[in-house]
């Protein structure tokens, strides 16, 4: 997360806006940000928004859909998060994505499960006061890596199969695989399958993702399998991607579309 150097702003009503500076370490063939990095932003901002919306209870991401529009090269991606519904047991959020603040870049919808605040978080105070803040930053003399997914430790084992060891850098507050890393892992596995079928410009353009279990046992791996056959124009494929833990338990389940413009 630190490598993405994201920023956020919380408003009086609790809504959240955030920015992802776009650098070559996570751009796709068209120069726009990859869906995995955008998933990191949306998941993180959604988590921030859920703190005030779910209070005094807590909330975990249960599912997330991301639909991207092509942006080409941009300087930063913006996400505006708002609450659609706060029910007794679920919280539904929407994120509007825009490129450089003025062009539509996509849409995300998230469900959070509202639960009693876990014991280890009971005494934690999180600053949700209005204002702008840096969510993550590089260390003072740290150079940004050339490839974000490689820096995370992703290894393409074979076509459509990508693994990552469960290290603190890819974990969440309880030591399980971070929700945003699920998205990036799914993106990489889907793009791997897509590159084989569509060529080197294949890019994951949308994800429907259901989180099922916390992944505590590594290595974690994402496996993408083709849905049907490629489009007759050979410019897109659909796929199912599962993220499994070291015990072969399904931790998240997604369907994706990969296209090659």
């Amino acid at each position, binding site marked *: 997360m630190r490598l993405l150097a994201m920023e956020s702003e919380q408003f009086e009503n609790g809504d959240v806006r955030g920015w992802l500076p776009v650098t070559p370490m996570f751009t796709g063939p068209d120069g726009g940000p990859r869906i995995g990095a955008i998933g990191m932003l949306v998941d993180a901002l959604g988590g921030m928004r859920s703190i005030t919306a779910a209070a005094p209870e807590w909330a975990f991401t249960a*599912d997330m*859909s991301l639909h991207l529009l*092509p942006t080409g090269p941009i300087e930063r991606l913006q996400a505006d998060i708002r609450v659609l519904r706060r029910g007794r047991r679920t919280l539904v959020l929407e994120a509007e994505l825009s490129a450089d603040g003025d062009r539509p870049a996509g849409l995300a919808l998230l469900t959070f499960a509202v639960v009693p605040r876990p014991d280890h978080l009971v005494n934690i105070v999180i600053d949700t006061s209005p204002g702008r803040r840096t969510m993550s930053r590089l260390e003072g003399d740290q150079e940004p890596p050339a490839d974000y997914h490689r820096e995370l430790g992703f290894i393409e084992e074979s076509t459509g199969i990508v693994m990552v060891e469960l290290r603190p850098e890819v974990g969440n507050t309880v030591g399980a695989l971070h929700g945003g890393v699920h998205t990036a892992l799914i993106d990489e596995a889907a793009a791997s399958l897509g590159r084989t079928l569509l060529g080197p410009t294949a890019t994951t353009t949308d994800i429907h993702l259901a989180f099922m279990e916390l992944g505590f046992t590594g290595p974690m791996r994402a496996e993408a399998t083709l849905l049907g056959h490629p*489009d007759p124009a050979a410019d897109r494929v659909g796929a199912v991607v599962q993220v499994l833990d070291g015990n072969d338990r399904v931790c998240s389940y997604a369907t994706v*579309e990969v296209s090659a413009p």
Partner: protein
Amino acid sequence: MNDRPEPSFGSGEMRGIGMSHYLPMPVIEIGDGSAPLPTTRGIFTAPEHLLDSDGRLETGMLASLTDSIGGMTSGLSCLPDWIVTTNLSLRRSPDTLQGPQGTGDLTINTQVMRRGRSSVVTRSSVSDADGHDVATSWVTCAVLTPAGGPPPFTRPVRMNDHERSDDPLFELPPEQFFSLEGGSRPGEILLHPAIHLRNPWGILHGGSVAHLLDTAARCVVADRIEPGPTPGIIVSDLVIHFMNPGREGPILAEASVVGRKGRDVLVRVTARDQGAEGRLMNAAAMTVRVL
């Protein structure tokens, strides 16, 4: 209608069975009915008046089928509690959006993937008579204790294995069966929640909502006000969040274009219950493909 009617499981009235006659799909449970994570199979026999000129079922009605079988299968894992669908995702295989593949009768294999304390995740795979992948879908459901209890089941389950009704209601084209009406601009569609569009608890069936939202999305792309077929325009994937039930009506769906990517249009759709102070029922994101 009062806010919480007694449930009806089809004993002599249309509520709870209307959708199963319009979208006929006998469902069987695989195995002896004791599996903690049940598996089911539905066979959809496609009535001609529901299909496009290629013989293809519209995506919203396909989602209605996966909502029905996915919800029922999720519910089996929760008995004696029951479920309510909270999120429905469906993605069509890109090679079955046009041409002969993915048309006609369909088989839907469904499996509960996770049964937690408060939620269930279930997936469905849809294939055509030749075994081609047509679509994949997942639903998430919240576990609840329903008023009047769950539907009565004998395990392993066999359901909807009834004679097809000859009521002319079930021969109507979709825009009439679902009581749709054009709104004030393309992408605005009203649904009047007739009794046959409700589930056993009197709430608008999730499948009715799926068709309404699909219609609004296609119409905003086709720039047409009146609901109906939109040849050459099809929803290729959808995500629908179910946030509040539809009880009163009319239900107003509003679709708006977020942006375009080649042949695809990203559309945001909401549904509100106009009879319940415009309460937000659903939010959805859909990709509409212009063939």
